[in-house]
C-alpha cells in the first residue's frame, strides 16, 4: 500500500470540496489516497510546453 496523503493536506482538500466526514470515514478514505497519489504521479511526464492540452476528445476514423 503506497503512503497515503498527509493528514493536513487531506483535511484541507476535503474541506475545500465542502464535505464533512466523521473521523472514521476520513481515516478510511485517506487510507487509499496512496493509490490516488500514485495515479497522479503516473500521468505527469516531461512534455513540451506547447503540448496539446487535450481538453477536447474525439475518436479518429482510420485513414482520416
Amino acid at each position, binding site marked *: 500500500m503506497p503512503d497515503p*496523503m498527509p493528514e493536513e493536506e*487531506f483535511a484541507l*482538500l*476535503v474541506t*475545500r*470540496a*465542502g*464535505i*464533512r*466526514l466523521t473521523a472514521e*470515514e476520513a481515516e*478510511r*478514505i485517506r487510507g*487509499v*489516497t496512496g*493509490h*490516488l497519489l*500514485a*495515479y*497522479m504521479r*503516473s*500521468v*505527469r*511526464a516531461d*512534455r513540451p510546453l506547447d*503540448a*496539446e*492540452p*487535450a*481538453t477536447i*476528445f*474525439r*475518436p*479518429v*476514423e*482510420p485513414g482520416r
Partner: protein
Amino acid sequence: MSALPGTIAEAARRIAAREVSPVEFVRAALARAEALQPVLHAFLRLTPERALEEARAAEARQMAGALRGPLDGVPVAHKDILETAGIPTTAHSRLLEHHVPRRDAAAVERWAAAGAVTIGKLATHEFAWGGPSFDLPWPPARNPWDPSRFTGGSSSGTAAAVAAGIVLGGTGSDTGGSIRGPAALCGIAGMKPTFGLVSRRGVIPLAPSLDTVGPMARTAEDCALLLQPLLGHDPADPSSLDRPAPDVLSGLAGGVAGLRVGVLRHFHERDLPATGAVAAGVEHAAEVFASLGATVREAELPALSAFNAAGWLVMAAEAFAVHEAWLRTRFRDYGEILRERLVLCGLVSAADYLAAQRRRRELNAAIAAAMQEHDLLLCAAAPAEAPPLGAVPRFAGIETLNLTYPFNLSGQPAITVCAGFGEGGLPVGVQIAGRPFEDALVLRAAHAFEGAAGWHRRRPVM
C-alpha cells in the same frame, strides 16, 4: 408455445412467422421477472401496463403484416439511469428516488420506435459507479449463475436479467467497463459502441467524456440487432457524431478469415494476473480465431496501470463535477460506497485532470499504432470469475485495476462475449476491440467466435 426463446433473432423469426404473439412473449417475461425478483433483484420496478400496451400494439402490427423489424414485440428493459417518461428513473439512488422524467431517453425512444417492449427498469450500481451497495432503497442485483456472487457493474441488473432469460436484451452504459465487466461475470454479450455513435440524451451522466450507451444480450448477433436502431446522429447530445449511421447487420456473417487479431496477453499475465480459467478463455478465443482463418499474433500496449491511472482520474474529476452540489448538501443520502469514492474524486485537481487527459491522448496514440498492425485486439474482460458479493473491494478501480479502461479512453468499440467457464461453473469473458467506427467488424468477429465456440448456448439453471 409461449415461453420466451433464447435470443432476439429467434423471437423475431417466431413473431414474423406469427407462431407467437408479442403479448405472449411479454407476459412470459413479466412472469419470469416476478418469479426471479426475490432471488436476483434485477429490477427496480416492472412496468406491466406500459409493457402490455406496447405488446398489444406490436401484436396489431404483426397481424397487419406491418412489423417494424426484428425488435418489434421483443421484451427488453432499461438500466435505471436511462430516463423513462412517467416512470421513476432513480439511478438506484435515494437522491433520485422520486425523480419522474417527462420524456424517454433517446435510446429508450429509439428502441420503442423499433417496436421493442419495455417491461421495466433495471438495477445498477448507484449512479453507475458505487456498488454493490446494501444501504440503498433497493438491494444489489445478484448473479444468475450463483446468486451469492457479484454480477459486476455497473450495468448489474441488465446483465442479471439477460443471463436469467427474463428479457432478451437491455441497455447498459459503459464509462470504465460497466457493460463489458458484468457481461463477462454473467456470461452474456455486452457491446460498448464507438463513443459518439449512440445518443446519451436522457442518460444520467457519470463521466461525460467516457460515458457510452450500448446493448447487452445473449449473443453478439442480438447486440447487433439492438445496436442498429440506436445508431445515428442526435443533435440533442453534444457528443453525438454527425455522420451516417453505420450498418452493423448486413456483414455480420462475414467471418474472420484474413483478419489480423492481436492478443494482449500481457494484460492478464503480467499487468493484472488472472485466474487460469480467464487465461484459458483468452487462449481458447485466439485458437478459435486462428481456426477460422484469422492471423493471430501477440500484441503489446502500455501497461494496464497506465490506462487505469488516466481513466480513473478523468472519470473521478468528471464524476465530482456531476455530483459536487449534492455532495455538499445531501452527502448522507448517498450510499456509503459511492459517497466515499466521490470524496476521493474531490481530491483530484484541475491540473491532475488535464495531465490525465494528456496521458489519455498518448495512450490512445499507442493503441492507434497497435491497430495499424492488427484489425482487432483480443484480451481478457475481467481478471477472475464472479467473486462473492461480500468480497468486492470498497474502492474497486483504485485499489484494483480493471481490464476495460483502455477502450473507454480511446472511444473505440469493444464487446465482451462468453469464452468458457471456470471455478464453480462461473462464466469468463473475453473482449474483442476494433478501430473507432469499425463496430460492425467487432460484432462480426464476436458472432464468428460464438458460432464456433458455442458458449453462449449454456444457460444458468434457475
